[in-house]
C-alpha cells in the first residue's frame, strides 16, 4: 500500500490569529517596535547634542510636542509590559536549586521586581 500523507499548510502571514496565546505572544513581540523607536529617539538626542546647545534645545522642544509625549508614553508602556512578561517566566528560565528543593518561583520573580525598584529609585534620585 502506498502512502500519501496530507500536509496542512500553515499561513506564513496570519498564523498568529488562530489562537489567543499566539496573539498574546505577538503583542509581546510588537513591543519591540516602540523600544526601537525610543532607542532611535535617544540616538537623535545624542546627534543634536553633538550639533550644539541650540540644536539640543530645539530637540527638547520637539520632545514636548504631543507626538513626542505620546511616543515616550507608548515606549514606557511597552517596556513595562515586556519586562513584566519576562519577570513572570524567570523561574522557568533560571531555576535555582538549594539542596534538594527548588527556590519557589515567586521568590525569584519578587527578587526581579525588587531589583527593578531599586535601580529605578537610584535613577530617579540621581536624576533630580
Amino acid at each position, binding site marked *: 500500500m502506498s502512502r500519501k500523507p496530507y500536509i*496542512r499548510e500553515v499561513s506564513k502571514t496570519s498564523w498568529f490569529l488562530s489562537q489567543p496565546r499566539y496573539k498574546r505572544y505577538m503583542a509581546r*513581540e510588537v513591543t519591540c517596535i516602540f523600544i526601537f523607536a525610543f532607542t532611535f529617539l535617544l540616538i537623535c538626542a545624542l546627534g543634536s547634542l553633538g550639533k550644539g546647545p541650540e540644536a539640543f534645545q530645539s530637540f527638547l522642544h520637539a520632545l514636548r510636542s504631543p507626538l513626542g509625549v505620546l511616543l515616550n508614553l507608548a515606549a514606557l508602556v511597552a517596556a513595562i509590559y515586556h519586562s513584566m512578561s519576562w519577570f513572570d517566566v524567570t523561574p522557568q*528560565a533560571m*531555576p535555582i536549586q538549594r539542596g534538594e*528543593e527548588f527556590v519557589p518561583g515567586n521568590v525569584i520573580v519578587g527578587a526581579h521586581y525588587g531589583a527593578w525598584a531599586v535601580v529605578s529609585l537610584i535613577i530617579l534620585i540621581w536624576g533630580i
Partner: protein
Amino acid sequence: MSEERQIQLEVLRYNPETDSQPRYQTYTVPCVNEWVVLDALNYVKENLDPTLSYRWSCHMAVCGSCGYMINGEPKLGCKAFIHEYGDHIRVEPLANFPIERDLVTVVEDFIAKLASVKPYLIPKEDKPISAGEFRQTPAELKKYKQYTLCINCMLCYAACPQYGLVPEFLGPAAISMAHRYNQDSRDGGRDQRQEVIATDEGVWECSFVGACSEVCPKHVDPAGALQQVKVASTIDWYKEHLMPWVKK
C-alpha cells in the same frame, strides 16, 4: 452520576486511497459524562464506523499515542473529559504533522529528531560492571526529574507555531530530553548534544511563545528547558570567545 448525553462528534477524516483532501464527518454519540474523548472515538469505532483510524494504547496518559486536536487545542484523548466540553466536539489530527489517515499522523520527523539528541546516558568514563553502579543523590535526581516525565506525545509540537513554520526546528520535547540528560550528574555527553541543540535549527529557532508548556499534559515545561539551554549555551559562547583559558 452516570448521566448520558448526546454528543455531536465531528472528526476530520482522510483516506489516502480515495481522498484528495481531508473532510469532516459527524457522528452522534451517546456519551456518559465520565467518558473521555477517546471513549467516544472507541464507541464510534465499535458501533458506528469501523473504518475510523486513530492511535491509542494505555488509556491512562502514559503511552503518549492519543494526541489529537480537540476543539483546536492539542490534548490527550484519554485525558480530555467529555464533561469539560459542550455538545459539539471537534477532533482533528495533531496540527503541524502530515496526516497519514484520519487521526493518525506521520511522526517519523519527531522520532528522528528525538534520536538525534542522543537521549540516553553517555557515561563520563567507561567502568566495568564490577565497579558497581553510578550513584546519585536525591538532589542530583531532583535536578532533572521533571524532564523524565515526558511521554513523547508531541502535543508540544502541535502547539508550537515555530515548528509549524520552520519544520527543521528540533522542537520542544527533543531539546528538553537533551536537557534532561545534560542535567544528569552521571552523564558526560553534553558536548555531543550541544552540537545538535545549540544551533540555528536547535534552541535558537525557539522564540519563546511558551505554548508547549501550556499544553504539556505531564508538566514537563519544555519552554523552561529551552530557555535554560539558551542561557547555558550563551555562557559557553562567552567562555569560549572571551576566556579561552577557562575550561568548560
